[in-house]
C-alpha cells in the first residue's frame, strides 16, 4: 500500500524568523492522522532566516538527524559539541538520557534550508552521542547514499542510531531510475526534498512524500526539468 502525503497538507507556520512545514504532528501542529510513521516521529522542513534559530532547549530519548539542503546550521550542545552543518554533511544526535542544544542559522545574510528528522529510539536511557561527517556529493548522485542506520560497521560511513531504521539520500537526474528493495515486513518513507521525482508511479514535488507498506521495492526516478533530491527512510 502506498499513501501519498502532499506538501500542502502538512502543518505550516511562517513565523517570520522561520518558515516551517511539519509532515507529522509537532509543536502547535497536531493531527491524529499524522502522528508519525512506524518509528519515524518528526519530519520538519525548515527555512530559517539569517542569524535566527532555536535557542537552548532539551531533548531526551530521541534520535535526531539533520539534512541541510542550503546554507549552514550552527549547533552548540551541553556535551561541548560546536559545529556548523552544511549540505553534503550528515549530523545525528542521540539525545538518550538528556541533551541541551541550540541551533542557529550560521549566516547573517543567507537563509538555511534543512530537514530535521526525529526517530523514536528502540532503547531509552542510552548515553547522549553526537556525530557529524561529510561525504562527497557524487556519493548520492543517482544512487542511494546511506546517512544513518543501526549498523556498527555500515557499508559506507554513516551515523549510528539506536533504531532499526536506515535513511538514505539521493539526487536523481531526469530519467535516472533506482530500485530499492523493501524487505518483507518492512516499510519505507520517501520524502521529496527538492525538485521532482517519481516513486512507484506517483509524481512528487518538493515537500511531497509517500508512505510504503507491503511493497516489494521503491521504484525511484528523477523527473521534471532538473530531477530531484530525496530522502528514503527504511523502517521496521
Amino acid at each position: 500500500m502506498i499513501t501519498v502525503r502532499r506538501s500542502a497538507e502538512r502543518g505550516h507556520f511562517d513565523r517570520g524568523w522561520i518558515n516551517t512545514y511539519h509532515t507529522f504532528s509537532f509543536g502547535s501542529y497536531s493531527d491524529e492522522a499524522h502522528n508519525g510513521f512506524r518509528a519515524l516521529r518528526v519530519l520538519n522542513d525548515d527555512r530559517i532566516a539569517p542569524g535566527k534559530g532555536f535557542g537552548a532547549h532539551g531533548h531526551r530519548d530521541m534520535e535526531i538527524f539533520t539534512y541541510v539542503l542550503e546554507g549552514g546550521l550552527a549547533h552548540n550542545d551541553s556535551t561541548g559539541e560546536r559545529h556548523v552543518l552544511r549540505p553534503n554533511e550528515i549530523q545525528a544526535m542521540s539525545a538518550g538520557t538528556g541533551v541541551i542544544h541550540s541551533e542557529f542559522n550560521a549566516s547573517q545574510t543567507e537563509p538555511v534550508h534543512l530537514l530535521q528528522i526525529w526517530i523514536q529510539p528502540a532503547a531509552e536511557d542510552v548515553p547522549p552521542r553526537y556525530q557529524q561527517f561529510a561525504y562527497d556529493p557524487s556519493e548520492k548522485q543517482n544512487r542511494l547514499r546511506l546517512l544513518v542506520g543501526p549498523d556498527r560497521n555500515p557499508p559506507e560511513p554513516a551515523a549510528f542510531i539506536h533504531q532499526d531504521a536506515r535513511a538514505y539520500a539521493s539526487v536523481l537526474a531526469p530519467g535516472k531510475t533506482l530500485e530499492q528493495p523493501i524487505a518483507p515486513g518492512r516499510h519505507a518513507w520517501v520524502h521529496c526534498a527538492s525538485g521532482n521525482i517519481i516513486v512507484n508511479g506517483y509524481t512528487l514535488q518538493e515537500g511531497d512524500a509517500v508512505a510504503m507498506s507491503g511493497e516489494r521495492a521503491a521504484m525511484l526516478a528523477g523527473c521534471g526539468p532538473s530531477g530531484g533530491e530525496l530522502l528514503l527512510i527504511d523502517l521496521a
Partner: protein
Amino acid sequence: MSPINALVVFYSRRGKSESMALAAGVGAIQARANIRLRRLADLAGPEAIKTDAAWSENVERMNKDYIAPREIDAQWADVLILAAPPDRTEEMERYLDSAKAAIQGKTGAVLGTFTSKAVAAGLAVVQPAEATADAAAATAYGRRAVETARAAKAGAAGG
C-alpha cells in the same frame, strides 16, 4: 510518573555559571522533567561589557541562545534551578525578589552562594545546595531537585 516542569535560570558573564546551569538542566532532563532555560540580563550597561572581551563575546552568543525569564515561566515551573557566580549574585537576588509571588513554596535548587536569598523568597531549597564548580555534581543535583519536586507534587496530590 507525573510530569514536572523545571525552570533553569542563571546569570553568567564568561560562561562558567552557564555551564553549571546546563549541567543541572541535563540532570533535570535525566529525571524526565520538561525544561526551560533562561538567562538573566546584565545589570551592567553595554559600555562596561565591551571592556571585557570574553564577557562581550559570550553575551552576544548567550543573548541568542536564551531569553530572559518571564513571569509565566515561574508560574509554569514546579522546580527552579538557579545558578550564578559566587562573586556576582545581584542579578539573581533581584530576580528572586521580582518572582517571589510566583515561586512561593516551590522546590528550588541553588548553584551558588545565594541560598539564604532563595529561601527568603519562599523556595524550598533542596539541601545540600551545590556551591561547587563540578559539572557531574551539578547534574546529580538537578536530578535530585526534580525528584524532590515530583515527590512533593505527589504528596500534595495525595494529601
